[in-house]
């Protein structure tokens, strides 16, 4: 059988006719055949009885795909498992591809020698660069892929060659990941399939299979000579990104490939970390780009926020003393340290706005419970909250006057709400005063009535 890339219908038609021809040939040679052929015969007869209409690619095991028929029955799991996997959920099988389409050989042959015939381009188990070549033969062919998944990219192999994995593989290191390491080889699922190892929530686990394995990663070094770390996955699991992805079920959150690349996987160069973070955190990257730290920080965003263990930020980070991150380089006690002064100024502004919002919020809550209409004030408090968030964003330009401007806008809003709140308190006092006056009138009547009673009763 030729190893060919013909459309599915043609192949199916060819399969069916080959099925009949094979069966005919086989019966003629039955007696002279060896043991394996007998096993195959039994399976084939059973298959023919159970699936009389011939082999559609989706039903198991194809009479013309003798590979699966034979491999599935083997004792050795290294041979049986791929066949079983391929017969299950596999995107290639579902599109009509068979073992021979990747491995070569003769899928119609019923004995091992003929099935594994090198003359029929049988490759056996590809290893190293051969894996990439096997996948790339189709997946890098734009015209071919257009027939199956027009939007899918066809440059993965090129990207891979540029990646650390690809470069290592080219040097003969078979320890690194290849296509099959992440996507699987048999039982390959679409990326959008939640059970795929490269579905966004699974990517980190897949990468960690190797990168968190200290034994496997032993001997690998960074460009500067230090050993390649293996705690990235553990760090990532502490991060906000991981929590958003796994608990928040927000697939927009980044995982390994979003920062390191899919196939061209490499750590972003130190100069480009801000760009990488900036693909999503655009405003922060833009503000940071205008700041004094841009040329000073080696690692950009990572200096303060870490690369894998990106935690939820808090205002406590903005301090040049104690647990503040600024304290790493700046010293609040040093009067000449302008950076420390800036940190203190910005933090002071932010804290002032924060406490202002809390205090005014409490006042508004109090008069709301007492029965004053405050929906306008609640709206304004929300705006003040927006200003607070904007101030924290602005802080990334590390320029106190800019933060002060935003905070001042927030302060103006708070002042107005406060005034309305005080008006509310005044209104409550006015109500009380009105009732007091009514009370006076009522008591006046009580006294007068008492006097009147005394009057009529003394007359009697």
């Amino acid at each position, binding site marked *: 059988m030729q190893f060919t890339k013909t459309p599915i219908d043609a192949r199916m038609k060819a399969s069916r006719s080959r099925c009949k021809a094979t069966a005919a040939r086989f019966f003629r040679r039955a007696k002279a055949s060896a043991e394996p052929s007998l096993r195959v015969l039994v399976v084939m007869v059973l298959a023919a009885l159970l699936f009389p209409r011939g082999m559609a690619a989706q039903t198991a095991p194809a009479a013309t795909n003798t590979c699966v028929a034979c491999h599935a029955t083997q004792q050795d799991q290294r041979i049986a498992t791929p066949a079983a996997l391929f017969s299950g959920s596999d995107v290639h099988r579902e599109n009509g591809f068979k073992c021979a389409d990747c491995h070569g050989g003769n899928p119609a042959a019923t004995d091992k020698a003929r099935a594994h015939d090198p003359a029929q381009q049988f490759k056996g188990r590809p290893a190293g660069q051969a894996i990439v070549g096997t996948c790339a033969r189709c997946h890098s062919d734009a015209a071919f892929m257009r027939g199956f998944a027009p939007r899918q990219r066809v440059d993965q192999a090129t990207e891979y060659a540029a990646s650390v994995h690809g470069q290592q593989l080219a040097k003969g290191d078979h320890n690194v990941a290849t296509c099959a390491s992440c996507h699987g080889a048999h039982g390959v699922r679409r990326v959008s399939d939640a059970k795929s190892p490269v579905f966004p929530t699974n990517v980190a686990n897949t990468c960690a299979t190797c990168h968190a394995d200290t034994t496997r990663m032993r001997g690998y070094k960074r460009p500067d000579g230090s050993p390649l770390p293996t705690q990235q996955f553990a760090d990532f699991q502490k991060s906000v990104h991981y929590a958003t992805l796994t608990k928040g079920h927000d697939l*927009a959150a980044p995982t390994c490939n979003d920062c390191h690349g899919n196939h061209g996987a490499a750590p972003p160069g130190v100069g480009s970390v801000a760009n990488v973070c900036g693909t999503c955190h*655009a405003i922060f990257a833009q503000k940071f780009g205008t700041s004094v730290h841009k040329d000073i920080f080696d690692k950009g965003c990572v200096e303060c926020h870490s690369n894998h263990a990106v935690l939820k930020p808090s205002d406590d980070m903005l301090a040049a003393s104690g647990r503040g991150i600024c304290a790493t380089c700046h010293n609040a006690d040093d009067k000449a340290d302008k950076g420390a002064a800036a940190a203190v100024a910005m933090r002071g502004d932010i804290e002032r706005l924060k406490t202002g919002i809390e205090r005014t919020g409490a006042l508004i809550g109090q008069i709301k419970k007492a029965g004053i209409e405050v*929906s306008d004030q609640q709206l304004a408090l*929300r705006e003040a*909250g927006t200003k607070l*968030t*904007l101030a924290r964003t602005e802080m990334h330009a590390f320029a106190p006057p800019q933060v002060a401007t935003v905070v001042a806008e927030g302060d103006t809003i708070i002042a107005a709400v406060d005034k309305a709140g005080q008006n509310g308190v005044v209104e409550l006092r006015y109500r009380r005063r009105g009732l007091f006056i009514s009370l006076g009138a009522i008591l006046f*009547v009580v006294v007068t009535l008492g006097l009147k009673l005394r009057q009529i009763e003394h007359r009697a």
Partner: protein
Amino acid sequence: MADNFNIPPFAASHFDRRTFLDALLAVGFVSTAAAIAYPVARYLVPPASGEPATQTAVAGRVGALGLNAAAIFKFGSKPGIVVRTAEGEIRAFSAVCTHLDCTVQFKNDTSQLWCACHNGTYDLGGAVVSGPPPRGLEQFVVNLRGEGNDAEIVVSRS
């Protein structure tokens, strides 16, 4: 009651306490009655805001919104945004960004709703286009009450 019915109380040679007391009593009753009647009368007059704005709110008039423009309005105690598309259709959404509760705004160059805090962007269906927001903006039902440019834009929750 037989004496002093001609002479006004204060002009009498001796002060008539009884009628004075009656007068005081009358004043007392009238003032307390007024103190009750006045608030009740004011209470019965419908207030300016009409009815509690739980399910619906008025978001201004059609004439106030140009094409490809938007305005923030108050829906209960939260902000909403009413948008008039370039084709003249009026839509309303919650203006509370689903990321960190900042108030979104309308960008008329891209005809999208945008949050200045962390660059979240929503399309005119409320769906997230880019940025950190985890969910789209809640869309409200819009009805018009009245005719032409004077029509009131009535926004309701469902």
